[in-house]
């Protein structure tokens, strides 16, 4: 739960706190989902036996490693430890797909490569697979090697087809994963500040740090995948 709140801050601060009363408009629901969270998840798994310093100090027998409770999050990747598994998003309504989307989606999914306009803190980034992304800020609570999943996008397209969101696509329609590569910094900036009638120049320095990401995957889900995940086909008899 801790990593969840961390990601909520990082990705969608205002929308995550909303109690989401109107879920009929599925295109406006967003939820951050981290694939591999940071190392600071010790709060979720308390050790079964309380730590006692006296026993350890007196006995020469090596102390038994505290066993950790297995979390209830779904295990999707075997190589990721249990406390770093992604938290499954809890959607209350299944994804609704219109007939027109159902008929045209195979053309988009079969045509590769794809591009995506992913939004992070309401800024658009046009990404393709393998791109370098240097965020204009330092993302908190991530370590090099972590995998993030971007869940908000306004455009997803290939050479001839584009899926447009109004304003955003439902996050169950696509997968966009990025890997945290590290932290970069800029050269020292020196700003000279002066006041009037004062023979003194202040030199203000700053040196910002930025998070480096690399796009691992940009994928439009196919119709079969959507149906396997429980998407409902909407009837459009009115139009």
């Amino acid at each position, binding site marked *: 739960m801790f990593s969840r709140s961390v990601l909520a801050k990082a990705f969608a601060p205002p929308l995550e706190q909303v109690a989401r009363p109107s879920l009929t408009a599925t295109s406006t629901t967003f939820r951050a989902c981290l694939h591999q969270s940071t190392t600071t998840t010790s709060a979720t798994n308390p050790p079964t036996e309380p730590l006692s310093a006296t026993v350890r100090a007196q006995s020469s027998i090596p102390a038994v490693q505290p066993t950790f409770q297995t979390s209830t999050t779904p295990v999707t990747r075997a190589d990721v430890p249990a406390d770093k598994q992604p938290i499954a998003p809890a959607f209350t309504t299944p994804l609704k797909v219109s007939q027109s989307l159902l008929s045209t989606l195979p053309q988009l999914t079969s045509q590769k*490569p*794809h*591009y995506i306009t992913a939004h992070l803190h309401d800024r658009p*980034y*046009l*990404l*393709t*697979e*393998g*791109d*370098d*992304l*240097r*965020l*204009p800020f330092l993302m908190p609570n991530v*370590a*090099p*090697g972590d995998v993030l999943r971007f869940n908000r996008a306004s455009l997803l*397209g*290939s*050479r001839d087809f584009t899926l447009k969101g109004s304003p955003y696509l439902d996050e169950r329609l696509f997968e966009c994963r990025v*890997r945290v*590569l*590290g*932290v*970069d*910094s*800029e*050269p020292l900036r020196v700003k000279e500040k002066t006041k009037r009638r004062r023979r003194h120049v202040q030199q203000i320095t700053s040196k910002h740090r930025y998070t*480096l990401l*690399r*796009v*691992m995957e940009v994928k439009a889900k196919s119709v079969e995948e959507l149906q396997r995940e429980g998407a409902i086909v909407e009837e459009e008899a009115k139009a």
Partner: protein
Amino acid sequence: MPVQGIRSVTSARNGVGAFILQCKRLDFHYCDWAGSSRGMVSFLKHQLNAFAKQNPQIEIRVSPRPHKHPVIKGHYINGREKAVCVRNLEPEQIFQKVNLLKQNSGEKNKRTKKPVTSINDSVRGIWSPYHGGLKSV
């Protein structure tokens, strides 16, 4: 026939499949006598062991450098190295510097305006006046 870019051989992109930390080696230099190395010596004694255990992918070398200020040098996969002078710093401050070197990409610090850099071809192709949607005057 739409306009197409020149095809090129694929280049390795760290992180798309496997991920390798860019920092491959950290050198710690200290002086036993000088006072500016006091924090560094304390760091080496008490904190370096845990750091090395947490980061098995980084080679760590510790060597004395008498009559000089303490220095941490990071060596990177791209062949560059970054050195940070840690004279008169406390062990906590030195730990921050070590983390900085560990997470760094090894590139020269640059100021960039564009957040995304791509070596891929344009997905939607290059616009051409001679193809598609021709209009007669």
